[in-house]
């Protein structure tokens, strides 16, 4: 019973963090049908930033979060300007973007390998374990979950309480009608792109804690997990993404507790089950099947 309780609580804590990872991807896919396969690698680069910060400047790795945001905004804008306008003219934007961002992902992995090597890097633990229901949880785990909550709230605020968010949702729902109603689609798309990338990079330092360290190839698995979560939680729905994250976190930590060798299969099995049984996700309205 104590094992079950532990798995349950850590599942929720992990789930909030996974929700944080998912929202940025959800935005890019929802607004522009861009399949950002480099999403996980951007998270990993955010993690490396925290690592560099602690090893060279000896400050709390969480400072990497505010620092990564402006860097990601600038980097994201450059990436956007190089790739997206041409990509939008392609015959099949969705599949082309998948291949293109796979290339970007390879470049990011190669650069990370050159700079940091292939070994796992870790961050120092933040403090003493935190007690929840009488059982200890790592401070970094609790802190990551605690930071994911305001991040998700901020994302919700942007999408549902600002004019830009309103325009973004209009483009997600129907791009042509949004244009006809005077929404500046290009500006909305650009903002959504850079905001999505910034969310990925900001989640990086937390990922380094949550995954027990990162290496250049960590990103690939994270991307798949993030896709699973946004598909479970439905596209264009940040609350759905948070719920999808928690569902995934629970499934993963329960498997870890009772059938450890199969833990790696959880995202794949969940993804298959969701796309086959309910392609619109658990919280979606539109069914999207060929």
């Amino acid at each position: 019973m104590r094992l079950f309780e532990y798995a349950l609580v850590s599942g929720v804590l992990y789930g909030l963090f996974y929700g944080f990872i998912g929202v940025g991807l959800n935005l890019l896919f929802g607004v522009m049908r861009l399949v950002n396969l480099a999403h996980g690698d951007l998270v990993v680069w955010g993690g490396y930033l925290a690592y560099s910060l602690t090893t060279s400047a000896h400050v709390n790795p969480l400072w990497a979060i505010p620092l990564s945001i402006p860097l990601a905004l600038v980097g994201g804008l450059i990436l956007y300007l190089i790739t997206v306008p041409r990509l939008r003219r392609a015959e099949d934007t969705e599949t082309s973007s998948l291949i293109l961002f796979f290339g970007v992902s390879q470049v990011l992995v190669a650069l990370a390998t050159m700079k940091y090597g292939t070994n796992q890097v870790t961050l120092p633990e933040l403090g003493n374990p935190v007690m929840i229901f009488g059982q200890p949880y790592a401070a970094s785990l609790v802190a990551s979950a605690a930071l994911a909550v305001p991040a998700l709230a901020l994302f919700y605020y942007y999408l549902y309480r600002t004019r830009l968010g309103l325009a973004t949702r209009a483009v997600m729902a129907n791009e042509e009608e949004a244009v006809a109603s005077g929404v500046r689609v290009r500006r909305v798309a650009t903002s959504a792109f850079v905001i999505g990338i910034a969310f990925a990079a900001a989640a990086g330092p937390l990922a380094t804690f949550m995954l027990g360290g990162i290496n250049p190839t960590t990103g690939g698995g994270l991307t798949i997990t993030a896709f699973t979560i946004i598909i479970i939680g439905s596209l264009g729905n940040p609350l759905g993404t948070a719920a999808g994250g928690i569902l995934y976190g629970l499934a993963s930590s329960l498997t870890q507790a009772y059938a450890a060798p199969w833990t790696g299969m959880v995202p794949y099995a969940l993804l298959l089950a969701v796309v086959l049984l309910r392609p619109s996700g658990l919280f979606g309205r539109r069914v999207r099947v060929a």
Partner: protein
Amino acid sequence: MPLVVVGAVLAAGPSLYNNLAFLTTLTIYILLAQGVNIVYGFTGYLPFGFVGFFGAGIYGSSLAIVYWHVGGYAAIGLGALTSVVAAVIVSPLLRLSGAYFALATLAASQALYFIVANESWTFGESGMSLPLLFSPTALYVLSVVAVVLTLVVVVYVRDSHFGLSLRAIRSDAVSAAMAGVNVVRTRTIAWLVAAALAGVAGALWALMTSAFYAETPFDLTISVYAIVFALFGGVRTVIGPVVGAVVLYSLYQYIGISNPQYFELIYGLLIVVLVLFLPGGLTSLVGGRGDRPAWWNRVVRRRSAPEVTP
């Protein structure tokens, strides 16, 4: 014409570069790239988990050899059959579109990996080891034959009525259905043919490698290489995937083994440039349509299937 050239070049391969393991692996990649060509090029579905069929072929043939002591040819046939069965099982995924399909096939291939790696009857923990059934030379000859036969299949897919249906579906499935094309059946056949190719490639790989763990057969980079080789050369052509595999796999042999991260960097940049500036692949530079350059069409005055444009 291209068939003869490819066959001759591959047959002359050992005298040009005497490394049979490299050449056999190259032919295996040609088979995989052609499989991707049939699925992605002709139907528009990106099979990100194509490696799953490769792995199914490897394990189908290997387990047949280990448990039933079948011969080499039977093992290749059973490898292809295993992949086809796997393709039938996952064929409901064809109902999905775009990124959903790509990611779902990826998930399916990795799920298969976890099953193979965790079960004892597949030798997940101890690793597979097979007797050597063919000499390296015999195996290379066999794989060249497989490539030539595959090219015949691709030529058929390109020029036949079946291929025309596929392209019609690719540009607009609803209109194709209205014109009397059986969309689901045509698409599924292409899917099964591609899976069979990957199965043959897998069986050849198993016969060549003979000792391996489940990580290698299901490595996602195999999918990715096959996709990029096909795209680099040019999909919807016969010769494109061959050219892509030869050029890029040679590049890999040259720098990828000693400095994998540099290869990865070049590879990544190449993919970006390819998607943005050369979506038709290398063969689209030669001109004309697909792998038939304009001058070739003029010389032979060959009639070809009408092009379907969206």
